[in-house]
Each structure stands twice: as C-alpha cells, then as structure tokens.
C-alpha cells in the first residue's frame, strides 16, 4: 500500500498551476478510506496502486498531470450514490471522469480526491422512436448513440470530432459542440432529461422525454457545469431523422484569406450549411494521410461545406456555393457523390487533431471564438507568433460560428518547448479577445482557462456563478480547482447558503 506523502506530488511540470491545497487529514487516512471505498465498490472497481493510477493521471490535455488519490469505477447508480454520500460525509473531493478526452483538463485528478470514472455505464437504456428520444447511461459514447438508431434512419446531432470516444456524460458536462452544431445546436439544444447524483448521494431527475417538463431551465444550468454540480448518471437525448439528402463539398483555396472570404459570402447569401469547417495546410496534410479523404494537397486552405435537406434544395444550394467559391478564387471543388464519400470527407476533419501526432510529438489545442471577418487578421498574426516562438501551428476552424482551434506543435522532450507553447497559446487567446472574440469556444474552462476567467467575467458575474455552485455543493467537494480561479467559501457569498445538504429546488422530483 502506498504511503500518504507520495500522493502529495504536485503537477510535475506546472508549478504555475495552483490547485486547491491538499487535505493532509485525508492523505493521512488513505488506507482507511480505500478500505471503505472497497466495501462500497467491490472487485476491480477501486484502483489504488501507483503504477495503475498513473494511467489516469491526465486527460486529453497531457501538459497537466496529477496522480489521483484513488480511482473508483462504480457500476451502478446506487454505487455512485453511496460513494458520493461517503465523500460528502468524509470531506473527500471528487473528480468525475468520462472518457478522459477533455482538452481543458476538466478531468484532471486531484492528489487528495477520488477520480470517479463512469466508463462502465455504457448501456443504452431506452430508445423511443415515437417520441424521438434515447435514454442512455453517461458512459455511452456520442457515436454509439447514433449507431444504435441509424438503422431506423435516426441520429444524434451534436458530433464532436472526438465522438468515437467521448461520452455523453462528458458532452453534457462540457456542453460540447460538433461540426454540425452550426445548424443543429450544441449539446444543450439536444438533451431533454438528466439523472443526477448530488454530492449528498441524493438521486434527482430533471426534465424527461418532453421539452416542457418541469425543471427544464435547470437542464441548461447543468449542461456545461463541468462536473462541479453533480454526477450525471443518465441522459435523455433528442434523436433526429436523418436528412433526406446530405452532401459535403470540399473546396480548396490558394490562401486562408480567400477561404475566410468565401465563408463570409456563403453566410451572407443566407445559406445555412449543415456544417462548415476550415483547415489550413498542415492540418489538411496530416488529416489526409490518416483518413485518405481525398483532400487536395496543393492548397493553403480547405473548406468543407455540408448541405442537407430535400434533394432539390441541396442540388440548388450546391450550385450556389460553387458559384460563390469560384468568385472567391477557389482552386478546386469536389462534391461527395455518395454516403461513404461524404463520410470520408468528414473522417479527415474529425481525425485532424490527433493526426497532428504524425508530424509532431505533442500539440496544445487552443479553443477561442473570433468574429468571422477577423480570421485573416488572426491567421496572419498567428504566423508571426509562430515565427517568434519557433513553433509550428496548424489551424482547424469551425468556420460557421467562428470557433478557432489552433494546434500548437511542440516537443515535450525538449526543455522549454512546453513553456513556449503555453506562452504562444496565451498570446493567441489574447489576440482572440483583442479582435472582439471570447476565450472559450467549446472545450470548456477546466484548469486550462480557469485563470483567464476574470478576463471574461466581472467579479459579480463570477460570484453569481459560484452561488449556483454553492447551492449544489456547499462544501466545494465536486471538481474543485476547475473553472473558478478561486472558490469562495459559500458562507462568504451569502444569500443562497445551504445547510445540511438540502438543496434549494424543492420542486425537483427525486427518489
């Protein structure tokens, strides 16, 4: 059994990132706590060996690592409830984790907290075609939902690039978007109900199969709550009928400026694309090498535009987009001729981030949103910065909504490069704000953008957000150190301070 002090390792690279002070009392009681947890979750569900826990030390943002205090993988909602109740009683922190694909360190463990993995919850519970809903466990992957209903011509609309692996629980916690969110919305627009276990162990149900269910506005609150308010144990999503026709176009340009202008013209013409994505040269090459998507390799920028709807409309829109593309110097245009080809066009884009692993050992994925017309300026500045820091950068851009993902390439084995990448990243985010954009697009705040929150929100705003947190988790045990730069004690905030684990929404049905 590992001795307690060994658990007290700090982030081995990032002394800069301050995490909540370790609870020495908890560290000292490690053996006893592990024994108690084993009683609650038997079998291999409690992982406490250092060599094993290392596997859980980071999520998709590998720049930050922290050995968890202990990893617990429950299998039933009752176990989740029992573990949370125990944590609440013991004053033990909890970090929920889905598939660990977060790019903002949302699932980064705590040295004195339980890492609560929900991957065992991977069952689809109910599919209701009449009401067009699917109710699933939180560990079901985003893509698995579509797979389960596609045979009947349905799909689940939000499609993050990580959809093959990320869980619906994680999607709800991060309010994830996807390449099709331009037309079909983010996670929050596509979920109807949640089951949530509070830190007290109480199990509550919010929403249901219908949009007008009680407590609907709470759904909005919980979507994007990054594991700070409760543990999601069941999700009811809306499923949609596949469009009659969907075709994707890939359009190559000699410059990003041309591609950016083309996006503006398409939107300006009132065309609502199902998805509109842009990649620059390094991203195109890396993605095509993996997916053999048939991208043109002699262009500086590539636009993928998808049009969906009734056949005649799609055909008409394709013609109009082709005209606009020509007017914007497009060097080539390809239209998908069948479903496999359409899928292939997207496969490259969806693999673009990790495909960068082919050309660089590490990348730091940034996430900012800018006004679309500023894209050429931002890209030009980014090139300057890239030279200044001596680090390459590849760009993937949700062109429709201005959400930009620069991927800064670095080599963590070269001393100093990670720090340079971080500085580069900070400059990019500052640039986004400078041109009138915002810091977070869709990857959440996590630890990564936590300390930038005051740049986006006033203190009053932040306090208000924290009051919500206090209403759900007065002791600040759920995912502390994430999202908020400093967690005030709930008493200091006054107003909706809650006693005895009672939550302030008496009208929520629970059992």
């Amino acid at each position, binding site marked *: 059994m590992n001795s307690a002090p060994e658990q007290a390792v700090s982030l081995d690279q990032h002394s800069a990132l301050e995490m909540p002070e370790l609870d020495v009392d908890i560290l000292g009681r490690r053996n006893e706590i592990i024994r108690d947890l084993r009683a609650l979750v038997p079998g*291999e569900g409690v*992982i406490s*060996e250092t*060599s*094993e826990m*290392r*596997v*859980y030390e*980071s*999520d*998709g943002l*590998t720049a930050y690592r922290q050995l968890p205090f202990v990893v617990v*993988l429950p299998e039933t909602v009752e176990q989740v409830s029992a573990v949370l109740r125990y944590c609440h009683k013991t004053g033990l922190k909890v970090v929920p984790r889905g*598939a*660990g*694909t977060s790019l903002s360190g949302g699932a980064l463990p705590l040295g004195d907290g339980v890492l609560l*993995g929900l*991957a*065992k*919850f*991977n069952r689809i519970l109910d599919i209701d075609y009449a009401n067009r809903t699917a109710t699933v466990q939180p*560990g079901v*992957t985003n*893509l*698995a939902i579509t797979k389960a209903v596609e045979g009947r011509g349905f799909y689940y609309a939000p499609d993050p690039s*990580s959809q*093959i*692996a*990320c869980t619906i629980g994680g999607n709800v916690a991060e309010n994830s978007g996807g390449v099709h969110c331009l037309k079909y919305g983010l996670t929050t627009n596509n979920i109807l109900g949640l089951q949530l276990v509070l830190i007290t162990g109480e199990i509550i149900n919010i929403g249901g199969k219908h949009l007008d269910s009680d407590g609907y506005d709470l759904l909005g609150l919980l979507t994007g709550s990054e594991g700070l308010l409760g543990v999601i144990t069941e999700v009811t999503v809306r499923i949609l009928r596949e469009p009659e026709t969907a075709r994707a176009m890939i359009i190559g340009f000699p410059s990003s400026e041309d591609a950016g202008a083309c996006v503006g013209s398409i939107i300006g013409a009132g065309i609502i694309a199902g998805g509109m994505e842009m990649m620059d040269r390094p991203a195109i090459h890396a*993605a095509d*090498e*993996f*997916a053999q998507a048939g991208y043109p390799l002699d262009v500086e920028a590539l636009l993928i535009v998808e049009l969906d709807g009734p056949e005649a409309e799609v055909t008409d829109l394709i013609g109009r987009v082709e005209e606009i593309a020509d007017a914007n110097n497009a060097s080539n245009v390809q239209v998908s001729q069948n479903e496999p080809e359409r899928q292939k066009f997207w496969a490259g884009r969806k*693999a*673009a*981030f*990790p*495909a*960068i*692993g*082919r050309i660089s*050992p*590490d*990348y730091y994925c940034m996430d900012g949103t800018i006004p679309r017309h500023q894209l050429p300026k931002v890209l030009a500045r980014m090139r300057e910065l890239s030279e200044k820091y001596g680090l390459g950068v590849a760009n993937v851009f949700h062109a429709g909504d201005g959400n930009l993902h620069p991927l800064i390439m670095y080599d*963590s*084995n070269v001393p100093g490069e990670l720090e340079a990448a971080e500085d580069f990243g900070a400059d990019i985010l500052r640039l986004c704000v400078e041109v009138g954009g915002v810091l977070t697009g869709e990857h959440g705040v996590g630890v990564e953008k936590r300390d930038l929150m005051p740049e986006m929100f006033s203190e009053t705003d932040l306090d208000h957000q924290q009051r919500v947190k206090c209403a759900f988790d007065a002791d600040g045990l759920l995912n502390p150190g994430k999202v908020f730069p400093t967690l005030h004690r709930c008493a200091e905030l006054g107003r909706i301070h809650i006693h005895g684990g009672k939550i302030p929404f008496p009208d929520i049905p629970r059992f």
Partner: protein
Amino acid sequence: MQTRFSIHQLADPDISVANDILRKCVHCGFCTATCPTYVLLGDELDSPRGRIYLIKNMLEDGGAPSPDTVKHVDRCLSCLSCMSTCPASVNYMHLVDYARDHIEETYRRPLSDRLFRAILAKLLPNPRLFRLGMIAGFVAKPFASLLEAIPVTRRLAALARLAPSRLPGRSANEGPGTFPAMGVRRKRVALLSGCAQRVLAPELHDATIRILQRHGVEVVLAKGEGCCGGLPHHLGKTGDSFALAKRNIDAWSHEIDDQGLDAILVNASGCGTTLKDYGFMFREDPVYSVKAARISELAADITEFLNQLGLDDPTIDPDLDVAYHSACSLQHGQQVHEPPRDLLSKAGFRVHEIPEGHLCCGSAGTYNMLQPRLSKALRNRKIGHIEGLDPDVVATGNLGCITQLATGTKIPLVHTIELLDWATGGPKPAKLS
C-alpha cells in the same frame, strides 16, 4: 507524448523504436472506444491508451514490471483494433510485442502460468507435437474437470476442452511438394502450411490448393517451412519465434532464388500479419534483414491474391446468406477489407455485415485459453450479433475464429476460401452438407 528514457536506454535499438512509437501518441483517447477489453471492462487500464501508458512506465523504469501491469498487458488481445482507429499512426503492435518480450525477460510468473505458457509455446508451433497433444487432449477431455480442480493443472483443462472430439486424418496435401497449375501457368506461389491449422483443419489447405490450381496457379509447399512464429511471439517468447521465422525465410528464399515466387500466400490471417512483419522483426539483422523484407513484400492473404488475379465465374448458384466475419488480423493487422467481401459477392453469395464488426470474437491466438473469461464474453457478444442476422453460414479468413465461434453457435462456420472453392468448381464444404 513525453518520454523519459536516458541516453543509455535509447542506445538499445528496441527501446529507441518504442520511444518513437510512444512519442507519436497524443493521448487523444480515440482508440479506447474501439478496444474490446475496454468496451467490456470500462477501465482505462484495459484500454490501448492505458496500456501504452503502462508500457511506457514499465520500459522507462526498466526491470521487472508490477503484477498489475502484467495483468493488463496480458488482457490485450493483440487484435489491433486500436491501430485502425489511431489517427496518429501509433504502432501499437510493435510496442506491445516488445512489451511482452520485456515481461518475459524480466518478470517471473506463477508456476502454473509459466508451465501453461511453455506448453503452448512448444506444442502449437510443432504440428507433430501438436497432433500428439491433441490426442492427449482427446484422451484427457473427460478428465477436464479433474484437471481444473488442481491449481497447477487448471489451465490444462482449457487445452483439453479445446481438443476436437474427432481428430481429422492427414491430408494428401501435406507438404513439402509442388502442385501444378491446371492449364496455362499464370503464377507460381508458395502457400504457408503453418502449424496447428494443418492438423485441425486440413481441408482449408486442400480447398486453397484446389482453387489456385484451377486458376492457373502453381502452388509450392516449400521444404522446411512451418509455423510463422506468431504464437510464441505473442507469448513474448521472442527467441523461439525468431528461430521459426528464420526457418521460413530460409525456405522461401531458397524457392525465390530457385524457381521464383510471385507471392507467398496465407490462408490463416493471423499468420499473414506475422509474415508481413518479418521485415520489421529482422530489421537489425545483418544476415536476414534484406531477405526478411522480401518475404514480407511477397506475403499476401489468399483473398488479396485471388481478387487481384480475378475470380472465375461461379459454376453454381449457392443461394446463401453469408455473414462475413472479418478476422482482426485481416481487418486491423493487414487492413484487408474489400477483397474477401468482393470475392464472396462475385461468387454469388449474399454478403452481410455483422454489427460491431471491428470487435474481436475473443479467439486471438492463444487468448481463448489464457483469458477464458474475457474471451467468452467477446464470443457471446459476437454470436449475439451474428444470430441477429440469421445467416445460412458464417465465413471468415481465420481458423481461430471458426474454432472459437463454433463453441457457441449452431450456425455453420466456414473459411472464406471453402465457399469460393465450392462456388467455382470445388466440392461443397462438409459443414454445409
């Protein structure tokens, strides 16, 4: 991904390769969702990304790994589904092969485990011993429960249970030998006769040789050739596997230099993956590197070859619904997707895709004996999907899958080549009569 090998460690060519592989992994987690063990267990320790991490730590630390690291590496099927998924082209196969070798070198397994693995590694690659073993297994079959009751022999029970209830006789097509083309000779190929398969199912080689001969292909069973070395390789017994591989390389090189070979064909896709890897295995070997690379280049699955050659028109209308089960070694190991499906369609079969086709059936070489619990769970999952299609027959390109699935379903299971042979003039597979 960051690694922490010392300069001294990196001087070891194996570590250097492992380092290159590890550094490619960007920890995106895409591979987890398509890993059979993660799908079953929901623990990242049993996922590719997790195993990569465990292996990284094991190699960086050097020396013997912890028992739990060994446990999770052992649970890996080597199905290589993760490699199909990985956009960063992380070569998990080479990494886990080396990890197994490292474990074998540094870690002392419990006695019963050691015994069992040693038996598997010695018995399976040697057709003569294997035949004897199967007879012994046949005899021991009734005593399987007894064997199970004694800890040291518990694992042997699995082997006894695997023994067929009737051992097929020897085939007239046992090598070495040359089988002339019918009509004009279009090609000359070697066929890997291999090890366990030729004892358990000689009809597969018979069908392969027949169909090739009819298509104008001369088939050689080269002298001295045998087990590809894959089975001991996956058990971490690198020495044994390299010795077996060398024998094959010598045998085929002799054929190439003598009368020439257009291809080296494999009808057991697990072995095909290994043959195609000889070039890598011997990359540092001054004597074998060039020869091995040449063998890997010539190696092809029987369906790849036939598809390129062009299949004769069918002579019958089989009128059958075939569920095609893509063996992991074929779809992930060799990335062969269309050829078997196209050939079956061309031969007149109605081909159906099995849902979750990317997931392993649990056979995976010796896995079904070493990890019976997980193997069985995967088998049942696969059979559920197959039975949902209600096909007349299941076709696959690897005997291991056939043996595995046959323990759980009544639907006939045949090798793709048996159906192709039948449809183009060969006899009807016995299992369909």
